[in-house]
């Protein structure tokens, strides 16, 4: 069956098409969908080429900033508003891929991809979705958990971080760029020597990027000492099945996650705030 293509600048139409047809996908940069087409994936039957200025916008909005779903990693890197996401965006792919891969595509990238999404989870970002002729916002974590409802994502909203700071690291087998063995993003707020808020997300480790609530609880309330960090690292595996693929076994991924969380927070220990 040949693939169908719809070009539109009407988000409402795109939202209806994907909601009603499980073979319909909105095309981002093509880095995920074109690969699936090449490999004969019969699930991809209808590509929607959706355009519109809002989709590539990166701009401050009240209480934070908005990034359109069609903004590429290169667009994110060129936008001063999105500074918090520069390190994660730079860790995605290589230059050519960063020119193509989009923020919206990253939300639905197959594991172990989804580095930017991991950072967005730690930043408590919200998914901006099409709703009738308007927009809706919901926590990104909820969007990622609900894989049955097919929503059109117009972009993400990243709230102001207040005193919190994002710490990010990605472990790869090949250097300087490669697919994730594990990606760690931790947003920490500290006051009076104590951690007052911790949002910690992992990518590449399980089926999709996720927030590790056990790790967050272990880190919150006390000083960021080595013992606390070690205890928190032991909570990473709670409630998840680490992913095995050609790059690494689940066991290896989980062990690396512990090491890289310890290292990342170890450097956070000495950093201001």
């Amino acid at each position, binding site marked *: 069956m*040949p693939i169908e293509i719809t070009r539109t600048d009407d988000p409402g139409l795109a939202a209806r098409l994907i909601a009603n047809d499980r073979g319909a996908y909105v095309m981002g940069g093509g880095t995920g969908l074109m*690969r699936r087409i090449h490999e004969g994936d019969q699930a991809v039957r209808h590509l929607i080429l959706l355009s519109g200025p809002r989709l590539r916008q990166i701009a401050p909005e009240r209480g934070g900033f908005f990034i359109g779903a069609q903004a590429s990693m290169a667009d994110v890197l060129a936008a001063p508003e999105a500074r918090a996401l520069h390190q994660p965006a730079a860790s995605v792919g290589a230059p050519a891929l960063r020119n193509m891969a989009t923020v919206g595509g990253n939300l639905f990238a197959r594991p172990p991809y989804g580095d930017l999404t991991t950072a967005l989870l730690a930043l408590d970002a919200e998914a901006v979705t099409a709703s009738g002729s308007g927009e809706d916002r919901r926590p990104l974590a909820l969007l990622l958990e609900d894989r049955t409802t097919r929503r059109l994502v117009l972009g993400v909203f990243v709230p102001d971080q207040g005193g919190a700071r994002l710490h990010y690291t990605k472990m790869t087998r090949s250097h300087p760029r490669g697919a994730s063995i594990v990606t760690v993003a931790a947003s920490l707020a500290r006051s009076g020597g104590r951690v007052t808020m911790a949002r910690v997300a992992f990518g590449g480790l399980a089926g999709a990027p996720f927030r590790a609530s056990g790790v967050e609880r272990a880190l919150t309330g006390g000083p960021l000492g080595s013992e606390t960090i070690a205890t928190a690292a032991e909570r990473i595996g709670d409630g998840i099945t680490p992913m095995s693929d050609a790059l690494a076994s689940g066991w290896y991924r989980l062990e690396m996650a512990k090491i890289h969380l310890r290292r990342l927070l170890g450097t956070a220990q000495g950093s201001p705030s």
Partner: protein
Amino acid sequence: MTTPVHFTHNGRPVSLFTEAGESLLSLLRLKLGDQTPKYGCGQGGCGACSVRIDGQLRLACLTLAETVDGAEVETVAALSAPNLDPLQEAFMDHFAAQCGYCTPGMIVAARTLLDTNPRPSRDEVIEAISGNLCRCTGYEPIIDAILAVAAQEVSA
């Protein structure tokens, strides 16, 4: 479903029909006869199909052909005429190609780097070609060749 697509290929305007789902790589190789970009993975993992679209480095295998409508597409063939690019000379002098399969994409990536950053550090060169795999050379001769051109173009 076929769609007409008009674009500039290495400076020459072309008009073709593309099948739904067809990649730019397939269009260039099978319909336009430009065999310089290579298929290595179809996943964006190897860079053998690297081309420039409106001056930006991209992967032809992951580009839906009809999205280049109105764009300027350049392959390594654009660099070879009328004279060889200094990068091509340097690759020859530094033994920066063995089997030659990654070379066209590698040179497109390297030229894109030097056009935007004429004086790259070694690390910047490595980053610029980090999406272009080479299985033969071990990369060192390629990095040397690119740095040699950078030094030569800056001093000239």
